């Protein structure tokens, strides 16, 4: 085992990790930074984000509106102090990216252009064609090359957060990783550790996530005793390709695309999102621009009514862009054209594209405060792996890319400050324990009998069945017991490959272990929440929001047997008291969706 001493160790080279690294480098130029990533940073899944990133700009919009949209979108489970901080800093971060070279789409006069996005009352989504995440990631990655103190450890697979209680309090002391290229374990002894490992969508069978979105960082923090928060809230994206799960951006609807059932009928008007908006004139919060959870739920109802299309990969509805015309489609949605042609052999100019909901985003994650710190001193988290309190029960599209920037920066600066105050100290105890842990992982190679691919498939099936768009107590109990049984089988997981370098049989097995732990936390958290809120919708008598019992964050903590223990903590409410979450015409009725701040003013449409 090799040991590397650094001030700040950042695990993850996606948008959040890069933003954190640059923040440390700018704020504390003398600190050494290790950027540890299991893939080259530009391969991180931020690259796949299409639609855009939120930030209030221009007339007609205000911070208050962004705040209200986010809090209502999150069904009042957002921490409002975090939302306030976020909306106040999102725009400056979008301009920061501009100065780092991102090619934001512009108006003819050279000013940045913004587009509409589901659940947002105003156009405030900054976009770079329909490859926003790609441009964001490459701009940040290339900018990071400017700072010699950011040392990258590409294709280093992080295994565990290393902790230590010398001096009485348990704290993070570094990260144990493994260099896939050279084939040996490396201990990063660090003053502070930042986890930015992204989402967990691969826990489900049908998902829009890349191969790397396997919950590693959530699993690492959870095993280190840090609670995972609000894990039952898993967002479905309404428009993914059947089969592969490849996403077609919500921007397609923002630009005027419509959703139709097998009869060509715009079914969203039947589910509280109407009245029907005229073709080519999308309106915020109406119809196709309703929030994701509502749009996905409407699909489920259409499916029950037998009004979906049949495809080779099961049921679907139609995304129809044809009325937008070839020129507009090619200018605004080039990626959609490419994907439809490659994956389906269809041309959106002439054909209706079959789409269906797929798991997309984990609202929950490692519990952190407004300063990005977890309950373990020295451990920070940002990005999709974290639960900052921003998204509540349902994330609004384009808030997460902005979150990577706003809270990634906070995480970097706070971790830097911590490392300055309490610098890394070498510890024989930490090193010898880390060496033991490394030995245990390496011993998995060439051992075990249980087929990991089979366990993974069964986990996917259990979660798709029991923790989908709509849930029941029986379904969730079944998922909990299936996952627990899989965890037992996993204890003897088979890794046939014995090669020390690029052993992806082994890394996939480790990822599977994290996914099982996190799936268990998700299922247990969901079962305990006896209400319906945001992305957690129940059909078994708990089909209403219950603020009396559940206006609270769920915490899942791992017990000695490795099982999740569920508890709750209060939501931070500053100005917006819980109200009805209404969209479409209902969202316009005075009073209905009013917040404490705007008691009598109708909501913006």
């Amino acid at each position, binding site marked *: 085992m090799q040991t590397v001493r650094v001030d700040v160790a950042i695990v993850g080279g996606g948008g959040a990790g890069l933003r954190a690294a640059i923040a440390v480098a700018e704020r504390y130029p003398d600190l050494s930074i290790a950027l540890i990533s299991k893939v080259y940073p530009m391969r991180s899944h931020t690259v796949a984000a299409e639609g855009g990133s939120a930030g209030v700009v221009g007339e007609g919009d205000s911070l208050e509106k962004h705040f209200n949209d986010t809090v209502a979108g999150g069904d009042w489970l957002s921490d409002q102090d975090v939302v306030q901080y976020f909306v106040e800093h999102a725009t400056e971060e979008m301009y920061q990216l501009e*100065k780092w070279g991102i090619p934001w789409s512009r108006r003819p006069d050279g000013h940045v252009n913004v587009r509409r996005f589901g659940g947002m009352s105003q156009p405030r989504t900054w976009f770079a064609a329909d490859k926003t995440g790609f441009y964001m990631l490459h701009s940040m990655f290339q900018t990071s*090359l400017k700072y010699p103190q950011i040392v990258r450890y590409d294709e280093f697979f992080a295994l565990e957060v290393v902790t230590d209680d010398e001096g009485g309090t348990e704290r993070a002391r570094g990260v144990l990783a493994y260099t896939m290229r050279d084939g040996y374990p490396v201990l990063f002894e660090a003053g502070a550790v930042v986890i930015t490992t992204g989402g967990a969508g691969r826990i489900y069978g049908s998902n829009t996530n890349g191969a790397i979105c396997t919950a590693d960082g959530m699993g690492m923090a959870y095993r280190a005793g840090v609670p995972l928060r609000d894990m039952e809230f898993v967002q479905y994206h309404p428009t993914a390709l059947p089969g592969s799960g490849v996403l077609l951006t919500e921007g397609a609807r923002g630009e005027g695309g419509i959703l139709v059932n097998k009869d060509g009928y715009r079914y969203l008007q039947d589910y509280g999102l109407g009245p029907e908006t005229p073709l080519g004139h999308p309106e915020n919060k109406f119809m196709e621009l309703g929030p994701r959870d509502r749009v996905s739920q409407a699909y489920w109802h259409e499916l029950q009514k037998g009004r979906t299309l049949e495809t080779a990969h099961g049921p679907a509805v139609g995304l129809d862009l044809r009325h937008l015309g070839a020129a507009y489609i090619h200018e605004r949605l080039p990626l959609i054209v490419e994907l439809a042609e490659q994956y389906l052999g269809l041309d959106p100019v002439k054909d209706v594209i079959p789409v269906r909901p797929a798991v997309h985003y984990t609202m929950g994650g490692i519990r952190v405060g407004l300063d990005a710190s977890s309950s373990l001193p020295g451990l920070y988290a940002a990005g999709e792996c974290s639960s900052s309190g921003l998204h509540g029960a349902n994330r609004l599209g384009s808030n997460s890319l902005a979150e990577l920037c706003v809270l990634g920066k906070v995480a970097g600066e706070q971790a830097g400050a911590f490392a300055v105050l309490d610098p890394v100290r070498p510890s024989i105890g930490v090193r010898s324990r880390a060496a033991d842990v490394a030995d245990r992982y390496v011993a998995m190679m060439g051992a075990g009998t249980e087929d990991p*691919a089979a366990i993974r498939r069964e986990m996917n099936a259990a979660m798709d069945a029991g923790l989908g768009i709509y849930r029941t107590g029986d379904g969730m109990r079944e998922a909990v017991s299936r996952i627990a049984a899989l965890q037992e089988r996993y204890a003897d997981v088979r890794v046939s490959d014995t090669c020390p370098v690029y052993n992806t*049989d082994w890394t996939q097995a480790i990822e599977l272990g994290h996914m099982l732990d996190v799936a268990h936390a998700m299922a247990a958290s969901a079962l305990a929440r006896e209400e319906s809120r945001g992305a957690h919708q129940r059909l078994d008598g708990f089909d209403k929001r219950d603020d009396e019992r559940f206006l609270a964050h769920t915490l899942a903590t791992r017990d000695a047997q490795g099982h999740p223990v569920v508890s709750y903590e209060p939501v931070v409410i500053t100005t917006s008291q819980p109200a009805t979450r209404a969209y479409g015409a209902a969202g316009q009725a005075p009073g209905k969706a009013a917040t404490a701040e705007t008691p009598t003013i109708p909501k913006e449409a």
Partner: protein
Amino acid sequence: MAHSEAGGVMTVEVQRYRPDVDDTPRLVSYEVPWTQDTSVLDALNYIKDELDSSITFRWSCRMAICGSCGFMLNGEPKLGCEQFLRTYAPGPLRIEPLANHAVERDLVVDLEPFMTKLAAVEPYLHPDPTGTPEPGNLQTPEQMTRYGQFAACINCMLCYAACPQVGLATDFLGPAAITAAVRYNKDSRDFGNAQRLPLLDQEDGLWPCTFVGACSTACPKGVDPAAAIQQAKFAATMDWATEFVMPHHGAPGAKDGGHA
């Protein structure tokens, strides 16, 4: 659906190499069931899950944007996630690691030389030394089109696998690194031209390129690296020429005057 329904079982030959055991790489055949939308990446994952879990390859996004999954498919550099077995029916399909790269294991190649070259061209904005306007720069759509296509590079390395010069001149910066430099040089917000040009204008920088154009043919994202190289060569030549007539050619005002 537009594609005719097709399918069957295809012989897929994959180059395998395990560095701690094998002296040389070898081709191994697998029988892979396929339907009309089975991608080459799906085929590799089928082999890994069902036939041999030790097979090793890079992938993540499976939507042709992360740039991980470049392979040689029947001798041509392609992204595995956006190629489909139907194209290679009835088979066999041969999958090999990207040409012109050292092989680490199976289909995994060494990317470190490229990462070094990319960093070498300073691929980030050098802001206006006289200050950046607040809250941000203005840039018209027309100004964006000058570099837009070059900014679409996903670093997939297909162009390096296609380029005859990359194999011959190992220090050649190569298509994507040069494209990254040109992308910033042509950005109206950037003032790093003067720093970057000498990096390009070296014997092994940009000059090994003989305009074969294979890079642009191979590129899955329409980046046209050959055009970027051509513009860089032109700029370097102009730079050399202007050296004699106007010593302050690197001044900010020169930006819109046709500098690459």
